[in-house]
């Protein structure tokens, strides 16, 4: 009997642990959506998009804007985008 109570207690603890993880993940997703995924949450109006783009063009915002639209851009992708963008812009005066 005591073994069963221990089992139930362990299950309760595991359930609590899982609930906390889900809540944390949800919170993190929402926070990320509000900071770097602004486009996805914005109403599809040109005026609104223009406003967001203006914000994004502030250099301070650019560093955190790499997740952008379309749901593309994991860590490897972003490193590649950055490397090629730097390479292309650096080609103005010098050769390779």
């Amino acid at each position, binding site marked *: 009997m005591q073994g069963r109570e221990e089992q139930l207690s362990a299950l309760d603890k595991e359930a609590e642990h899982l609930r906390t993880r889900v809540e944390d993940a949800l919170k993190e997703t929402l926070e990320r959506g509000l900071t770097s995924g602004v486009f996805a949450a914005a109403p*599809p109006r040109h005026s609104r998009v223009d406003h967001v783009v203006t914000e994004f063009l502030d250099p301070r915002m650019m560093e955190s804007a790499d997740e952008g639209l379309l*749901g*593309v851009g994991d860590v490897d*992708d972003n490193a590649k985008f950055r490397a090629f963008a730097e*390479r*292309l*812009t650096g080609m103005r005066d010098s050769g390779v």
Partner: protein
Amino acid sequence: MQSAALGDLMLGSSPWAWRPSRTSWFEILSQRAAQWQPAPELGLDAAPLVECLVAAAKKEADWLHHPSVTSLTSDNREEGRVQQDFQLAIWTAANARVLTGKIVAPEQLWAWSRSGGFQVRAGVHDLRSLGSAVAEDEWPWPIAVDVWCRSIGLPSEQSWAETPPSTPDDEKRLQYEIRMLLRALTAAKRNLPECVAWMTSMTQVVVPLRRVSETHTQSASSRQHPGLVYITLKDEVQILEALTHETAHQHLFMAEVDGPLVDPTDSGTYSSPLREDARPLLGVLLAYHALAYICAFYVDAVRSDLNPRSRFSEELRAARLKVLDAEGTLESNSRALTESGRQFFELTRQVVSYSEH
């Protein structure tokens, strides 16, 4: 009977399958290649180069529909001629790997390749080696980005080449915009393969334009720069829409090589859904055709895993209203379309029907 030059689109098939024939365009290119005389300063043996170009044009080789052949397609043969002819020779050596011989760079020149290319110092160079370096260059995206207009040898109006970044913030802005473009191309390649195959059948290179307005975007393409489109880079969705828009124009340019789509004697101007000023009927047909494909792009985007879906739906609704507006104008004035123009209109109407369901 439908003109073979317009290509075909089976009712119910994917709109991305419609590719107007390029045969007449290649015939004209072949004639121009046969008459090409490279700038004498380059010290080239022109005959084998011309032979390669003519043979490739007869085979309708994809690599010829590219801004690197601007020497053959531009009417302006004075400005930038040495750089343009240099690029054409290197590009031909890169794609027809049989050329040997020397090429002289009378001054420091640039060999453009898909990832940007490299500087070539003044002096005598081996043509095959330069061609190999261009051919072996790797670029991970389906369309190349030519920030400094080197594929065409002249800085275009409103390009970053014409007015380079002058401050660190300007530089950051350019890099940010390029990253957006690369992200958009990555997303399209992964999620919209049919659309991308249709795009890359005509569009090879993007020249980013400087944004002159926070509220308006611009895009352009020219018959004199095949495979090249100019676009401002505002956000990823706008970038893919602009690529679709300009690629549609490149397809229409092919369709009209065989003959005009609009009666050349028609001097009327008509309202266009994409411009505030009244346009000739060809402008309305260009807009209608581009909007038909923009609708198809948004239909595919809504069905894909891409986000934000709500924006795709909203843009689709807006584009649908515009395409119907243009359709009405063309229907009311179809007397000014040629027979080929009417067939092109009907085929485009089938593309529009893709977004009706």
